[in-house]
């Protein structure tokens, strides 16, 4: 701009006074030109040419489902690396699918839509009972135990609940009616302490599909419910979302067998063996395996058989739960 004015002033052919006038005109023109932007290039597309999309299932696909105790994202995060490992290790076309609810999970096992089910022991005894699923492996928790416990939690500042007995007449939120650590184990634990379902002011289950453990914790954290029941280790999952010190664990249940891998009824035994083999090979001391195992939140997979879960069956009977559909 300054250059323009200077340029016109240096031009001796234009009288001095006119130089300034021309300078102003050029300046004004320049300022106005600033308002004129160039149009962006546009790609021509013809929207009239269309097609009907048809989604086709992949052939010889082995479906793998993680009981949706957490959100699909967490489920994916935990098991995606493991599935990649299994695909690579077994050469099978394994794909993780995400049922929204425990019931849907069980139904999909029954409908052969889930070939490999990774579920809690209570779900397992139900799909084993109802759909003929067979356990072939179970995990060892990060605690090093092949069992896990349920937890009864409340807000840390809730002075009215100090012992498990204080849970009477309180509002209780549980993970799901089919949750082992989030409902079944705590219910058995409460019964052991003489507290039945009738003693609670209200019992509700976490709403919506997936993410149920988090929903229970968040509901108690928000003060909507007095106590919540979750599986051991669930608090760590929400440690990035809330201050888990504001949550107090009132009581822990007894240990029961951990999560279990089960094959649907009539799944090729060879495939089961390949998977059992591949899972059993995972070694926490192996760097690559460790990443897979840490993501999946267990340190080891060990062989298992259906009888390993009899204790759970007994608990279900104790609390009066039916294994039927």
């Amino acid at each position, binding site marked *: 701009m300054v250059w323009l004015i200077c340029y016109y002033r240096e031009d001796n052919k234009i009288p001095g006074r006119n130089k300034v006038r021309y300078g102003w005109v050029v300046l*004004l023109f320049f*300022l*106005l030109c*600033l*308002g*004129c*932007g160039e149009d*962006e*290039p*546009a*790609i*021509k*597309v*013809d*929207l*009239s*040419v*269309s*097609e*009907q*999309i048809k*989604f086709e299932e992949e052939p010889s696909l082995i479906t793998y489902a993680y009981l949706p105790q957490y*959100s*699909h*994202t967490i*489920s*994916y*995060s935990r098991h*995606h690396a493991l599935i990649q490992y299994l695909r690579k290790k077994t050469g099978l076309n394994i794909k*993780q*699918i*995400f*049922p*929204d609810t425990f019931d849907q999970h069980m139904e999909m096992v029954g409908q052969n839509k889930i070939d490999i089910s990774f579920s809690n022991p209570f779900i397992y005894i139900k799909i084993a009972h109802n759909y003929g699923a067979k356990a072939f492996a179970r995990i060892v928790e990060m605690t090093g135990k092949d069992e896990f416990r349920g937890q009864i939690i409340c807000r840390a500042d809730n002075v009215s609940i100090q012992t498990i007995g204080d849970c009477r007449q309180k509002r209780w939120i549980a993970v799901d009616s089919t949750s082992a650590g989030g409902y079944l184990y705590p219910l058995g634990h409460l019964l052991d302490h003489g507290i039945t379902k009738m003693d609670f002011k209200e019992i509700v289950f976490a709403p919506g*599909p*997936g993410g149920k453990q988090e929903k229970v914790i968040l509901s108690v954290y928000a003060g909507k419910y007095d106590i919540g029941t979750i599986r051991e280790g669930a608090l760590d999952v929400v440690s990035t979302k809330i201050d888990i010190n504001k949550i107090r664990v009132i009581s822990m249940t007894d240990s029961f067998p951990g999560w279990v891998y089960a094959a649907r009824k009539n799944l090729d035994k060879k495939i089961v063996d390949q998977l059992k083999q591949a899972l059993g090979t995972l070694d926490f001391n192996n760097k690559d395996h460790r990443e897979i195992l840490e993501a999946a939140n267990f340190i080891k997979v060990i062989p298992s058989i259906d009888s390993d879960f009899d204790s759970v069956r007994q608990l279900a009977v104790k609390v009066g739960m039916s294994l039927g559909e």
Partner: protein
Amino acid sequence: MKLGFRDKIYVGIFSLLLIQGLVVFFWVSHVMKESILAEIKNRGITIGISLSARMVEPLLAMDFLRMKVLVDETVQLGDDIFYAFVLDRNATPLVYTFKHGFPTELKTVNSVLDHQKGSMKLLDTGEHLIYDYAVPVIINGNRLGTMRLGLFRTRAEKAVNKILISALVTILFAIFAAGVVGTLLLNPLTESIKKLYASSEQALRGNLDARTAPMLKRNCWDIMQCHQNECPAYKNYHHRCWYLAGTLCPTCVEGEYAKTIESCRQCKVHKQCSGDEIQSLAESFDAMTLSLKGNLTDLRDTEGILNEQKALLQTILDAIPDFISLQDYEGRYVSVNEAFCKILNKTKKDIVGQKNVTLFLKNRAALYDQEDREVLDTRRPLVKENKVEGAKGTKWLHVVKIPVLEASRGTMSIVCSGRDITQLKAVQEQLSHAQKMESVGRLAAGVAHEINTPLGIILGYSQLLLEELERNSQSYKDVATIVKQTKNCSRIVADLLNFSRSSESTISEFNMNEAIEEVIGMVEHTFGLNHVIVKREYHQHPLWVKGDKEKLKQVVINLLNNAFDAIQKDGVIRVTTDGRRENEIKISISDSGCGIPKENINKIFEPFYTTKGPDKGTGLGLSVTFGIIKEHKGSIKVYSPALSGKKEAGGTQFIVILPAHLNGKKGEINGENSRIG
């Protein structure tokens, strides 16, 4: 056509606002448009990312319903969202919002890499311009698919255009509002300026009764509750009291304006009555014209006095017979008087502003310049007498040149004054000559007295000797010559004695006509021998004179002799007496002789002045005549040629005036007629 102040302001404001508006409209609106488009683009990316995040769960679950709901809900978020769809990792559309199948070209027209936040492409469908956004659906660094979103740019532009139109309307409104506000603000301003201009014009035309300041609702006498009629501010609606001198308010401070105004600013009158700068300007203008008027009146009075003094001074200078001039340091004439003009025979206009070189001859101018320079350099007056030769004869000038310091200019000037002393010089010469003659006369008288006695003896003895000699002898002739020459010497001695000492007078009353006739009778015969006729024109009545008859007869004899000598032969001598005037008698003797040259006419009464030969006159006749007439308290005048044609042309006329004796013997001579001879 030249614009007025108000028009210029209007044009300025409107031009400025228009230019500003255009710049704002084009530039700022461009920026605004870009920001809005950027915001729209960012909105697309944001919606895409949000949708992508929300799409993870249903995509993992392959929940087509939820995915469909999500894309449909997204499209319903706003009118500007054209479409949304989800591609799986193989770029296969999973769900979309198109009702009539999926547009095939959309699949590949925009792509995004895993590590990219999103990708935007502008698509032209022929009907609309669409921003197409591709956002990867990522979970834990693994690509699940691609979220695609289409936003109408056309609709975004509509929104932008709406804003631009609003901006344009706002600018136009701002220009209009500025015009209205400008008009409201400018009108009083321009009116005041016009009024000031008109007053200024009036002042230039000499009308200093300016009335520029507005009338106030409350004036100083209202505020101060004053009733002092003598105060110059009282009931003075057009001038503010703080500009007026000599106000009588007890709070007023006397002194210079600078002092008083500081005091006035604290006064409640000033606080309540002072206005904005324009009003103050108008008020101060009125005060200025008032002050100017007073000053002009004083100036005019002073100018009148000065002019009067100047005229008076000039009158005095012009009345002075001496010539006076004033020259500046350069020698240029600044002022001169009438006498100076007369000397140079030029007008003041011709002289003032000129130098010596243009007024005088070269040599004289150089001399005067040298004198002037000397006076200026030495700072001493110069006094001198200049002899000036001119066409009218020689003049003597007495000149004084005085250096004068002009205090106002700090330069030296010369005042030159001079006077014509030619007459004085002549008188001085005459006096000197008379003194010389007096000495000579006394000497001659002494000599005459001493030789008178021996001459008498010589004459006596010569006459005795002559009686004894024979007439025809040579001795007789010789002695006769001695007697004759001795008589001449005696006459000369007698004249000398008459001239040098007043002989005793015998005063009597006599008729002058008779005395003249007696004298004519003595000389008429002698004159007649040379054909010189004496004509008489006596007054009809006797002219009684009281005096020495013999001396007065001597006067007539002298005058007749001079007339005869002037005629020498064949001429007329006319003698006339006149007693018509009561107090005096007039005797006129004129001749038809050769007359007296003009240059000599003043010398004829000088002793020993004569044009006759050495043996014919002593040059004392007219001197003696002059002395006798003076003795009788009369006067004598000479005219050559004679005064009128009636008299003898070319000759000389002497007119003697004598006092008449009023108590003379009137009865004896009454009735006598004049004689004409």
